[in-house]
């Protein structure tokens, strides 16, 4: 009986770690392939972007969330629906700019960095930069050009992990070339 129960929790643990372990292996590989941290950060962002432009469709298909009317709604959906669905956490939303075009996502704990320790030789590495690319790619597909970047990172000794999201502009629908 208890062996069955053990099996169940082990399965769950392994399943949730598959992504984070794979991610970790990827980051390590990229650090080997590229000379400096900046290049790795760029790669992670680019890969994240490619994931984001597809992930958004999976998100829309499963969550039934409609079009967001403003950036506040977008923030809510990102934190309360998307992060919850994909990473099982609900970051808090804080530090709105007065114009309402910037906010911060505060992650008390970042599932990607469980068991990760950043070596001194990689002090400029933004380990979880994939997330920024994902957010950027996903939002671009719903017509929002945004910038996402880490401003605090528990891996670097900060108390929390903070992603700053900035709304750049709305991407308008364009009639395909050739139409009148």
């Amino acid at each position, binding site marked *: 009986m208890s062996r069955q129960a053990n099996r169940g929790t*082990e399965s769950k643990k392994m399943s949730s770690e598959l*992504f984070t372990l*794979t*991610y970790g292996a990827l980051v390590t590989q990229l650090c080997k392939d590229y000379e400096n941290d900046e290049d790795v950060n760029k790669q992670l962002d680019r890969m994240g972007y490619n994931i984001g432009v597809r992930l958004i469709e999976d998100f829309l298909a499963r969550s039934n969330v409609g079009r967001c009317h403003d950036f506040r709604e977008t923030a809510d959906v990102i934190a309360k629906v998307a992060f919850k669905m994909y*990473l099982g956490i609900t970051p808090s939303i804080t530090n709105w700019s007065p114009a309402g075009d910037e906010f911060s996502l505060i992650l008390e704990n970042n599932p990607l960095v469980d068991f990760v320790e950043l070596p001194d030789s990689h002090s400029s590495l933004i380990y979880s930069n994939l997330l920024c690319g994902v957010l950027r790619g996903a939002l671009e597909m719903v017509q929002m050009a945004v910038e996402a970047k880490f401003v605090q990172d528990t891996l670097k000794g900060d108390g929390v992990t903070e992603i700053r999201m900035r709304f750049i502009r709305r991407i308008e629908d364009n009639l395909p070339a050739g139409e009148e």
Partner: protein
Amino acid sequence: MADAVLFEFLHTEMVTELWAPDPDAGSGGKKKSLSVLEGLGFRVGQALGERLPRETLAFREELDALKFLCKDLWAAMFQKHMDGLRTNHQGTYVLQDNSFPLLVTMGSGSQYLEEAPKVSGMVQDMPICPTLLGLSWGSGLASPLPTVFLAFTCGLLCGALHTLGFQSLVTASVAALPACRFQVVIQKS
């Protein structure tokens, strides 16, 4: 708890990123990329294996270890069990998955199987866990594109077995989507 979809998307992106057919590099370039994917899988398989409590690791029988892969590991990774396990009782096992989740979206039947970059020449730098992908490329056989999507998993199986105390050679092939087959040959030290 990371959603399974995240792993699928990450895996796809990794394959796209790390396996870029390079016409100039010749056969060497492609093999290296595949072994990178296998290597990543191996490390992840090892780590997954190390998460297990000690008693589960005390597999005395090979077959137990393989059954573990087919049931527990597969369920944890792909939310299903392996569909078939056969063995010749002499250290060779064939694991059959009739509907492998990483291939399931690609099709059923023979579409996409025609795309087969041909490679010849022996594998130069053997990864910790050489795979059939390496060997078949070495013998000049064409390998269908979906096979690339099995490299990571081959490495993972190899890595998990390594933690369980077994050295192995893991190979994979696709006959008709979305079914695939993993062949595990336990190395006697």
